């Protein structure tokens, strides 16, 4: 930590052009090693080739956006003084050392979205990816920054598991980092937030979701089915912004369900290295067992199955539950697996109302042909994001991304991260003798 702190002080003195040059070289490195990256991505995360390409594409977009961040620090704004003879200079300066903790599910882009802007803004980073995806979440980017000439100590990588390495909360409690960027489960996020609060550190917490996909009575059913299939099953459903609840107006629920089930049961599954595979394995046995327990509990509770999947090796094929109640245990659970649930409702207004009836508030989607009504409905949903006539999984580095309620605090994206990863310094200069009242 002390070496990161020392390295940051020097890095903060570099020019925007020097920082941009490093990031451009990172992009070139990743471009040159795309094949190896896709190969290790599919081996390590279980993600399909399609998923690997999505992750890489988002990573390149995040890096291109990070280049723009380099101009946004060490700038000074002059503010006229209210006291005669006083000049005010407000500096935007780097925060210092930033702790970054990223998850197993989309490790490459969920790591770069913290690392690249933080470094572009003159900070140092101590990065700890989930050790289950240590290469995709850490080694690739670290190697790229090393080859790009980033000075020693500015980016540090810890491949470790604090639950077993004996360090416990040491990384979170350490006094040097001024910011903790955490993406992962809500349970761990609450713990990170508690420690950050106690130690007066800033945080960005991007946590779980129970994202609704709403199909209103006037929706184009075929388009909605196409979108829901992607939004539910991409990366085997292991994404924080994945579609969790599909809420459908009762007038079109039967048609939607029949078409959705037909598409879901035809999705190719198996080896993620096979280019035709859509559903690959879940990350580990623990996640498989969790998904299977959710399925068994729903079946015991009498929830109707329209499609019963199965475990094939370490792959879980799609399940579709229907006639689900929004207040049921199933509907209130973030399933994080290829398990879909369809909730029929009596009116469009009811659909919008129950969309927010969850502890989470990350992403949401809404299908309708009435775009004016759609925007009004979108604003009523308590989530950080709503996509109209699209599904819940979208990322763009110059848009604010983050959740409400138990989905976290803070926003990623340019320019919102500038506020998160920098601070201000007020320097005033009294140029005339100031008279004091006593």
């Amino acid at each position, binding site marked *: 930590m002390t070496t990161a702190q020392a390295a940051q002080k020097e890095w903060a003195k570099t020019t925007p052009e020097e920082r941009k040059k490093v990031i451009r070289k990172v992009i070139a490195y990743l471009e040159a090693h795309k094949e190896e990256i896709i190969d290790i991505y599919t081996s*390590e995360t279980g993600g399909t080739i399609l998923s690997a390409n999505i992750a890489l594409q988002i990573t390149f977009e995040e890096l291109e956006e990070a280049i723009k961040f380099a101009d946004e620090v060490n700038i000074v704004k002059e503010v006229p003084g209210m006291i005669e003879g006083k000049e005010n200079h407000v500096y935007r300066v780097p925060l210092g050392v930033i702790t970054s903790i990223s998850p197993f599910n989309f490790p490459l882009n969920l790591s770069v979205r913290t690392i690249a802007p933080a470094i572009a803004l003159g900070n140092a980073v101590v990065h700890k990816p989930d050790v289950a995806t240590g290469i995709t979440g850490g080694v690739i980017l670290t190697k790229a920054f*090393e080859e790009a000439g980033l000075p*020693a100590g500015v980016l540090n990588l*810890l*491949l*470790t598991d604090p639950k*077993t*390495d004996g360090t416990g909360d040491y990384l979170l409690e350490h006094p040097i980092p001024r910011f903790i960027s955490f993406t992962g489960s809500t349970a761990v996020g609450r713990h990170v937030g508690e420690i950050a609060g106690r130690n007066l550190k800033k945080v960005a917490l991007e946590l779980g979701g129970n994202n609704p996909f709403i199909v209103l009575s006037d929706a184009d059913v075929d388009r909605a089915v196409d979108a829901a299939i992607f939004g539910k099953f991409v990366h085997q459903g292991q994404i924080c912004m994945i579609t969790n609840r599909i809420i459908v107006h009762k007038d079109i629920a039967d048609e939607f369900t029949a078409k959705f089930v037909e598409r879901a049961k035809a999705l190719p599954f198996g080896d993620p290295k096979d280019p035709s595979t859509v559903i690959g394995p879940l*990350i580990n046995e623990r996640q498989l067992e969790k998904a299977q327990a959710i399925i068994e509990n729903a079946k015991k509770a009498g929830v109707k199955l329209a499609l019963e999947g199965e475990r094939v090796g370490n792959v879980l094929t799609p399940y579709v539950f229907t006639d689900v109640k929004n207040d049921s245990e199933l509907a209130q659970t973030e399933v994080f697996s290829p398990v879909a649930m369809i909730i029929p409702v009596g009116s469009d207004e009811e659909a919008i109302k129950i969309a927010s009836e969850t502890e989470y508030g990350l992403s949401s989607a809404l299908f309708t042909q009435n775009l004016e009504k759609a925007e009004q409905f979108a604003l009523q949903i308590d989530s950080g994001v709503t996509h109209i006539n699209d599904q819940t999984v979208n990322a763009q580095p110059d848009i604010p991304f983050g959740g409400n309620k138990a989905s976290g605090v803070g926003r990623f994206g340019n320019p919102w991260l500038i506020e998160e990863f920098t601070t201000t310094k007020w320097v005033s200069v009294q140029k005339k003798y100031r008279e004091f009242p006593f």
Partner: protein
Amino acid sequence: MVNFKDYTKQYINGEWIEGTGGKTIDVQNPFDRSTLYSVKQLPLKI
């Protein structure tokens, strides 16, 4: 070509270093559960 498995180590202050006293973690391929690589954890508090 780069073999990223050669760098499954800690990267601290510009150096790739092995953990020396902590537990070793075997990272598995999710599809076939074969061991992809092993990482020696850091024993020290950095």
